[in-house]
Structure formats: C-alpha cells, structure tokens
C-alpha cells in the first residue's frame, strides 16, 4: 500500500481496465440485447431447444441472468489481479 506507482504504471492500469470494461460490456450487450431480444425469433427457430424451451426465450428468461453473474465474477477476478500488479 505504501508504494507509489509511476505515471506509466498508472496509465497502463487505466488503459487495461478500460479494455476489460469494453470487452465485458460487449458480452453483456450481446447476451441480453442480442440473444435475448434482437436475434430471439431467429434463435428460437434455428437453435436447439434447452429442454423444452426455445433457445432465445430461455436466454431471455434464464440464461442472461446466469451470464450476468459470470460477467461480474470475471470482472472481480481480473480487476483483483490488476490491482495486485500495481501494488506489488
């Protein structure tokens, strides 16, 4: 905690966290708005069913929520690693 990172290290940290943020938000958008809404009718017709539920419908009502949790876990883990690098 007592060490002061250089400006370059700080810039590197910031650009890496922004990149992570963009990647995670793209996944977030693709799953919810993409699979859950925009491509839902197409996925319902062309993708294998999850049990007896059409694919897009299942993503909208179950799959998206599960993905959101995974996204947040990934965010916590990767940011934690970045933090450690900065502190070390």
């Amino acid at each position, binding site marked *: 905690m007592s060490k002061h990172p250089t400006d370059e290290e700080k810039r590197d940290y910031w650009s890496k966290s922004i990149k992570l*943020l963009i990647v995670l938000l793209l996944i977030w958008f693709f799953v919810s708005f993409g699979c859950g809404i925009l491509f839902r009718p197409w996925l319902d017709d062309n993708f294998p069913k999850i*049990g007896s539920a059409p694919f897009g419908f299942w993503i909208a009502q*179950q799959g998206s929520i599960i993905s959101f949790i995974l996204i947040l876990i990934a965010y916590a883990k990767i940011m934690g690693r970045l*933090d450690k690098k*900065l*502190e070390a």
Partner: protein
Amino acid sequence: MSQNAWNFLFIGLSFAAYIFIAIRSRAGSTKEYYTAGGGVSPITNGMATAADWMSAATFISMAGSLSISGYDGSRFLMGWTGGFVLLTVLMVPFLRKFGKATVPDFVGDRYYSQTARLVAVVCAIFICLTYIMGQMRGVGIVFAQLFGIEIWLGVIIGAAIVFFYAGLGGMKGITYTQVAQYTVMAFAYTLPAIFIAMTLTGNIIPQLGFIGDYQGADGPVPFLEKLNNINTDLGFAKYTDGSLSTIDMFCITAALMCGTAGLPHVIVRFFTVKDVKAVRKSAYWTLSFIAVIYLTAPTVGSFARVNLIENLHDTSYAEAPQWMKDFESTGQLAWIDKNDDGKIQYFGKGKSESKKDDDVFIGKVPAFKGLGDSAERGSHGQRLVENEIVTNNPNELWFGADMMVMASPYMGNTPKWVIGLLMAGCIAAALSTAAGLLLVLSTAVSHDLMKKIIKPELSDKEEIKWARIASFGALVVGCFFAINPPSSFVAKTVAFAFGLAASSFFPTLLMGIFFKRINKHGGISGMICGISFTFLYITYFQFGLPGLGKGTEDQYLFGISPEGIGTIGMLLNFAVAFAVSHFTPPTPKDIRDLVDNIHDPRAALGQADTGPSHH
C-alpha cells in the same frame, strides 16, 4: 391450524426477529447512520442489497406480469439484473473513490454548480417518490389479503408500520435487518415454487420443471408447449413469443438497465463495505442472491398461468374454488357473466371481433357495488361492478397481475404453512425496500437540499428534524398514489421510476466519470432536457397534459411505450450535454484533476481505501 393462524405465526416471528436485530445493531454514530460505518462484509452486504433491491413490486407483481405477458415479461428479468453489470463496472468503484456519501453531492461537485446539485436533488426525490408509491401499493395488497380488507385500508396500515420501522435505526440497523428479510424472502419465494413444480411437472427444481414435461392426465407433454397451446387456443399470443414490438422491448429493457445503474438508493449500498475489492465481490454476491428469486419468477408465472386456466376457464362460478371468491372479495379479481351461462370464460384478443380487444369492462380496475357483507351480487353469487361492460369480446375474467404470486399456492394446493411464509416474505420485501428508500429520500431532503443549498448553518438536530418531515411527507404522497394507482399494476408504476433515473442520473454520472470535457452547462442542460422529455412523455400518455389531452397508443414516438421512453430521454441527455459543452468554455483545471483522481485506484495514491468519509 387455520390459515390465519399460520399467517400470523410467520409474520409475528419474522417481525420479532427484525425488531430484535434492529435494536441490537442500532447506529451509534452519524457515520454508522449513513453508511453503516463502512465495515460490512461483502456477503452480508450482498444479501442486504438484494433485499433492498427486490421490492414488493418484484416479489408480488413480477411473476404475475410474466404470467400474463409471457416472453414480454423478460424485460423485467433482464432489465433488473443486467443493470447490476453497468452499476458495478461503470459507476460504483468511481463514485466510491470520489468519497462523498450521496449522489447529488457528486453531481454538485463534479459539475461545480449549485444548480446542478439542485437538479440532482429534485431528480432523486422524484425517483424515490415514484418508487415508494409502488412499495406502498404492494404493502396494501398484502395486508388486504391478510386481513380480508380493502386495499386502501391495507395501504394505510402498511404506511404506519413502515414509518415507525424506518425511524428505528440508520443504515447499520437497516443492513442487518435486511439480511434477515432476504432469508425470509428467498424461502418464501422458492418453497411454493418447489411444491407447484412437483405437482405440475414432477420435478423438484422449478427451473428444470420449467423446461421439462407437464404431467397431465394424458401423459407427459413438454411444459412450455402445453402452455403455448393453452394460450393460442384461448386467443392469446404464444407464451414464448409475446406481443411487444422488438424496438419497444429493446427500449424498455435498456431503460430498466440504465435506470438500475442510476438509482441513488442502490449506489449508496456499495458505500457500506470496506474497500473497492469488497465492492466487486459484494456486487456478484448481490446479483447471485437476486438471481435466486429472478430465476424462480418465470417458473412461478408460467405454472400459475396453467393452474389458473385449468382451474377457472369453463368452470361454473358456483363450483369455482374458494380462493377465487376470496380474491374477488378483496377486489383483485372480477367475473362478469357476459353470455349469462354461469360459467367463467377467459379469452384473449384473438377471440374478439376486432382481434384487438380483451377488456372485460371499461376502466383499469373494477369498481364493485357495495362493500363486505352488503356487496351486491348477481344471479350466480358473483360481485357486481359499476364499470361499463365491454361486449365486443367474449372475455369474462379480470384479475390484477399482483394476484398471481399470492394465489399460486392456493391453486397448487400447497400446505397452509407455505402460504403463511409467503405472506411474511411479501411483507419483508416491502419493508426492506421502503426502509432503504426512505433513508435515501430523507437524506436527500435534509442533507443535500436543506443543508447544502437552502440553509448551510443548519444544526445536526434540525437536519434530523427535516429528515423526519421528509419521510412523513413521502409516505403521505406514496399512500395517495398507492390508493389511486396511476397504472394498472405495481411493476409498471415502478418501471417509471427507472425511466426517470435512466434519463437523468445514469448519463450525467457516466459523463461525469468518463468525459472530462463535459462542463457544467452541458451537464445541467442535458439532465434537464432528458428528465423533462421523459416526464412529459410519460405524463402525456398516462394522465394527459393540460391543453393537449391524453395520448393514444398510435401516437407513440417510433412505437415506444412510456415504459421505454427513458432510453430516448437518455440519448437526448447525452446529445444535449455533448453539444452544449462543445460551444461553452472548457471544464476548469481543478475539476479535470478531480476526474483524473477518480480514475486512479487508491493504491496508486498510497492511500488506504476506507470508503466515503461522512460529510
């Protein structure tokens, strides 16, 4: 044991637990009052936030609206969970770093203007008020059910309890009580679902039953196919297809998500944990706890729909189950025998002449003739209504979406104690959210408005006095609208709070954090344009505007309903803010430094991360 005895037992036990915890963890200092002293563990905070987040609207209304609208209901599921991703990655770590305890504080300092602070306070008060309305309605419904009284009386009783309860302890007391409330809610929501899943699908896990087979008299059939067939037979859209347009669905979901990320009372929750690492951890715990209920809601909704139709459609009123008559007597269900055959018929739009109408009567809710024992009854014993009957379609059954969760255990013949637990869960949901909201609302008035803007020399004692006045005022307004709901069901009323948050706080905070170039002129004009556009649009279509009258559906901008207009308001906010900032002087140096400072992790500055200090 009778049903009432079970209800009172569970509610009594849970209340005793809440009061015990609230007294044990009373706030000892102002910091504990506002942010629980900043030392709550991530899992505890996750549970408390989940309880705070899941309101009576979610608990009572969401499964019902899923049940009625099928796929269309996914907007609530995705909207109210997906917003947490935005909140966690875009907002909380940075606002926390900024180090003030309220959201208007950030807006006021970042946009270096008292006007910005004032606009933010007004937005915060307005959003919380809209939200509280939904809560009070929820409380009213539970008490109506519990004591067999009319909803308005239930609302008044609920408000009295919430007022005394929220006054007990600050954030610390609320946090630990909410942990207990979450536990009650989770059990109350999932247990009935498990019972119903077992009878309907033979599967003990509702989420598997949902995608599994329906165990009918003619052998197993895929459950969702069965539901789709029921729906199309009766003239409704297929359950898995829904009937909202894609653009409307997109906009509503976006408004709910961005609204979630801009709700002041949720952001404040993440100021109660130790450091930014704990914030991230707490965020995924919160969402996981929320998911326990959100993944169950679609199953409850779909099971209830099958049960409701199998139980009531084409059944004579005289032989209809007792629960139907109970819900009729609390005004949540009405049957009008249009063809005078004594049988209940439930049909969708597809069965009407115009294919557009399935209204039973004119008006949002039935106005019954006479109350209690003096209720006027028709030839079959049904309650009569004053509303004008709509005769261009054969649908005879009206029920509020709010009824579904409460009715589903009765429909599924679950044990009586499960219903008692469900009642306790509903009350926990309403209490936990209302308490959190009242705390934020009273801080907005006493701290942000009175102390920071109107009267800076305000003493601590007066600040607390103003906080009390604000909570009382908010409850009175909330009750009024809970008794005269502006929308047909709870989830819809609450959806408006999100539209307003999406068009004001979300873009303003986002630009404040990530774009140094946005100056005070841009920030303020964006916020004002966004929220006024959204507010006027919603008012025009919900209540009508003076001189313009009330809008109709074919006047919707791009076919977007008032629920989704927050998304357009948000885009407008961004556009105005960038345009105005472009033509006005750049942001001063100290503000640019402030933004840079927010971007640095605490470790980079060699500081310990202890969360926002008390203002």
